[in-house]
């Protein structure tokens, strides 16, 4: 569930970001942002959620490397908390970047599935 309206002034500061520059971190970044699209989560909750919906366990070092990159580019933001386990939320810029990235992935998946169905009858 989104926590703010897309395009809020605060999140547009570094707007226009995408996951194109993430290189090998694009995978973990997509998983983290997809998890945060459902609401704020801290590191452990992110790990568990990603494991449940993607079947992938992201190691702590990789998780925080991706979190730091996403935060530095304004795609996610830390939420104030008294708990030592600080939660994160998706920003409007992050939601837009995730949407664009997933749409691109869906186009590739659609083409692949269509070709599989046409030539292999498996889709």
């Amino acid at each position, binding site marked *: 569930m989104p926590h703010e309206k897309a395009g809020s002034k605060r999140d547009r*500061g*570094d*707007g*226009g*970001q995408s996951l194109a*520059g993430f290189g090998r971190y694009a995978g973990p970044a997509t998983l983290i942002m997809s998890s945060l699209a459902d609401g*704020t*989560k*801290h*590191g*452990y*909750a*992110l*790990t*568990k*959620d990603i494991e*449940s919906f993607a079947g992938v366990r992201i*190691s*702590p*070092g*990789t*998780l*925080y*490397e991706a*979190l*730091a*990159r996403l*935060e*530095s*580019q*304004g795609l996610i933001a*830390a939420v*104030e908390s008294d*708990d*030592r*386990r*600080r*939660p994160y939320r998706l920003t409007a810029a992050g939601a837009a970047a995730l949407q664009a990235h997933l749409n691109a992935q869906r186009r590739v998946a659609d083409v692949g599935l269509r070709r599989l169905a046409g030539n292999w009858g498996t889709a």
Partner: protein
Amino acid sequence: MSPAAEPTAGGTDAAADRAARLLRWYPAAWRARYGAEFAELLIADICERPRSATRTLDVARGGLMARLAAAGLAGSPVRPATGATTALDARHRQVRASLVSLGCASAVFGGFGAALWSQLTIGWQWSASASAAATVATVVTSAAMLAFLALAVLAALPALCAVAVTTARQRRGQQIVPAAVLTVAITVLFVGGRHFGNGWPGTGGHRGLVPAGLAAFEWATSLFVNAYWAHPSALAAFPGAELAWMAVSPLALACAVIAAATLLRRTELSPRLLAFEARLGMVACAAMAVFLAGCACWVATGGQRSVFHAGLIDVAGVAVMALALAIAQQAARTARLGLGFARH
């Protein structure tokens, strides 16, 4: 929050100790920002998987990447969770760190480059080169070194002005110590270089490519880069003053580089100046690449028929310069990326 059962916050003492040890892979600034929450995640992970070599390797790799990012050589800047620091400030700090790393790598390149170049130029002072490789190497390295020195001056002047203005405006006491160290180190290098350069036994009477005084100064300031360190008996035959200079000059050079890096890290540079310095850095990398090609050309031919023959120390020097150039290029690339983001 996730409905999954979670280990209690804080975890066991043993897990906390192991998490604290793993956290040491990360630099202080990273630990200050993410340390507490990362430790909680590690404790939870350790409680679930008590033994995991994969986790240890993953954390070690992540820590090294964070250290490279802190040095402005990779990744993204650490953005404080609270306070007035914006993403733009964090990126500018990252660009500054990249420029500092670029400067340090350039200084190492310059130190070893001066040692090789002085051999070629002083060799030419004694007799004209009889080999095409040495001629090409001397001309190419001389042109590249002069360009490199000009770029260094162009880069240093506005940066020093910014440091002076910031220090004067903010009356920062913490800038005084590195500024004093930088002044003393440069004075030592200049005075010592002049003194020992003047003591050079002669030029052989042949007119060289560059002024004999400059060549001798380069030779004197890079005197510590030599093969005699591996031959203590030969080293012992050196005059005491020269031995002392060979020990003092690298120390002064290191102090100058560290002090300049400290000053720059503590000084806010305007986005325009950051962009200017980054562009100069890219041009300097090109000059360094040309210089390295010239040196490699000379070393590959063994310095045949030139007064100073290329030896193992020169091969090692070329290797060090290649490494320094790779670091400088990576720093310039990171700075460019940071500035590209900052312009959005």
